[in-house]
């Protein structure tokens, strides 16, 4: 059992993968000597050399496009995109090539590629440095999309993502990079399972990545007011573990979904649709969403109020319970 930050846990996970599997290599801008702008790859280049930890030219299409070729040759590339807002030059390679390769090749060619992206808001950055692009990727068949909320999950999930024979978009909630926690070494939960992080009987609150902590805080405050809120950390956005969500909603009868990404066509919409399809008669209130608004991320001075937080989650819990 060790205590580390979420960034440190990903670093440990990458180190473990580089040590145990010679096919693993890292590609990205500034990931070598600098250790990445968030220091997630700190020290790895020094220990594994420049052919395993590659400082790439400044081109995201290049990073992902070459990863496709490397994967065909039997490697397991782990790409780092420096910030969420800079993944878009690579989107053609991700959506048209990486995601479809297995399908195009009739199942003959696997794409065991991980694309790590620091994502989400809450660090007061300038434009393009706070984005929540998860729905674009989750909407693309062939891609798996996951995100972690704790150091323990970060360590385990990066290892599982690298071991996956499918491409995985690995979203790292950048405002949680410095969150400390224990890495237990206990057997890991399956990569695509949601986790119930707090049990409750009155309402189900579903969150992921950066919003798991505020969701837990919401549940704590609601608990003080006599309401028992169950909190589920989705962990995997594609595929979605609807079984865990459904089982919870069947017990509580109420559901609130929260994410930082804008509301319309977001992950929350998908979950709401599935729940009403399968658990309509168990619902005692409409499914509510607490999300970013349908605007680009605002200038950082407006960000704190623009992003969903405990206050808006509590208000949604109240609204749901009032039904």
């Amino acid at each position, binding site marked *: 059992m060790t205590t580390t930050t979420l960034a440190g846990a990903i670093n440990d996970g990458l180190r473990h993968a580089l040590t145990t599997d010679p096919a693993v290599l890292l590609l990205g*801008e*500034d990931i*070598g*000597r*600098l*250790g990445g*702008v968030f220091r997630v790859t700190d020290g790895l280049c020094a220990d594994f050399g420049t052919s395993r930890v590659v*400082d*790439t*030219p*400044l*081109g*995201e*299409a*290049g990073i992902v496009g070459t990863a496709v070729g490397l994967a065909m040759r039997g490697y397991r590339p782990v790409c780092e995109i420096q910030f969420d*807002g*800079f993944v*878009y*030059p690579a989107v053609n390679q991700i959506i048209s090539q990486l995601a479809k390769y297995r399908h195009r090749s009739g199942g003959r060619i696997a794409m065991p590629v991980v694309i790590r992206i620091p994502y989400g808001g809450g660090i*007061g*950055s*300038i*434009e*393009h*440095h706070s984005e929540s692009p998860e729905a674009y990727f989750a909407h693309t068949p062939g891609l798996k999309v996951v995100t972690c909320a704790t150091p323990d999950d970060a360590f385990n999930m990066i290892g599982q993502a690298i071991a996956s024979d499918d491409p995985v978009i690995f979203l790292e909630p950048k405002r949680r990079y410095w969150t400390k926690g224990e890495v237990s070494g206990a057997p890991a939960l399956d990569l695509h399972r949601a986790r119930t992080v707090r049990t409750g009987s009155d309402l189900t609150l579903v969150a992921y990545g950066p919003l798991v902590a505020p969701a837990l805080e919401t549940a704590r405050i609601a608990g003080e007011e006599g309401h028992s809120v169950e909190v589920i950390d989705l962990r995997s956005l594609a595929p979605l573990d609807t079984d865990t969500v459904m089982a919870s909603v069947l017990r509580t009868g109420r559901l609130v979904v929260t994410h930082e990404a804008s*509301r*319309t066509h977001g992950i929350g919409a998908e979950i709401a649709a599935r729940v009403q399809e399968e658990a309509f008669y168990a619902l005692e209130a409409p499914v509510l969403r607490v999300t970013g*608004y*349908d*605007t*680009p*991320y*605002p*200038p*950082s*001075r*407006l*960000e704190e*109020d*623009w992003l969903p937080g405990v*206050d*808006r989650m509590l*208000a949604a819990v109240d609204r749901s319970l009032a039904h």
Partner: protein
Amino acid sequence: MPRTSAKTSAKTNDRQDPIQLLTPQGEAVSDARLPFDPADVDLPALYRDMVLTRRLDTEAIALQRQGELGLWPSLFGQEAAQIGAARALLPSDMVFPTYREHGVAWCRGLDPASLLGLFRGTTLGGWDPRDVNFNLYTLVIGAQTLHAVGYAMGIVRDPVGPAVSAASTAAASAVLATPATPAAPAAPAVLAFLGDGALSEGETNEAFIWATTQSLPVVFFCQNNQWAISAPYSVQSTVPVAQRAAGFGLPGIRVDGNDVLACLAATRRALHTARTGGGPTLIEAFTYRRNAHTTADDASRYRETAEEKEWAAKDPLARLHAHLVATGAADSAYSAYFAEIEAEAQTFAEGLRARCRALPEPDPSLPFEHTYAEMTPELSRQLAEHRAHLASLQEISGPSGERA
């Protein structure tokens, strides 16, 4: 085919020796590749631009340290490249900057305080690009090169734009230097800034292709400050920037980026070529980023202090200062002139500080209002929801705005 040996590339490097018109010691020299008459420029004015620009930079760094700005990308060391390039422009020319062109912004007459809003987090833009023909800063590497090309396409389609023909292309390429003020009102040209790292983005390469195949009036001005955050230029390329131009079919010219005269002369010539139908040019200003990439970066993790020292000795301001002193060009009483500029810089910095702190806080409705031309019904609902939420916070915490 044999691999290119290090020797060959060193030779190529020699051939591409940066053009210099002012030595690091401040001596004016000539270079047959770029004929230039120093009488064509106002040297003391260039010096003033550089001093004030450096002061803007120093002040912004101080403001960042005091928590007034979230981030600042410093231009320290790149003043000659920026002032030289910018002072070659006519007001009607359009500029597409990256996020580091504070000196160019200064020369365009943009209020320096409006540069700070983006980094303070009060705005995503801060100015109307059409006011002084200076586009918004572009943070996504390389993207602006294509915008510049499209803008140039617009210019040649304008009824008032120049007719671009093969004949005028040939004529224009014969033009070497041009006077500071052309006699007739000139057709606009476009000046796009980019870094050496940006050359690796696909979009930049697409921009070169579009610009050359359509012979567009656009000049690409690459400040090769040798670093893209922690990546040295050798990560991007094995040949000098200027040499890469040939493969696209546009002229590449390599100048000493710490030499304001060479930067000015090269840009003036390239803009003239562009506006007279001669097509695009890629200028490489070979320079050095003397500070870290931004205030959030730690350059000591990836580069040697010896290199930083070496480039300190090539400082662009020091060399123009030395030249002005040696030639007495500033004034016969040049020390008074320098003192005047210093005093001006001091007042400028104080004003900037005050105006940074006074930048208006954005209204919470701002992102909603500016997402579409007209707010959608859904966004109106969301704005109402947001206002109600903010009001409820006020109730909880009282009018001070403190969060519970």
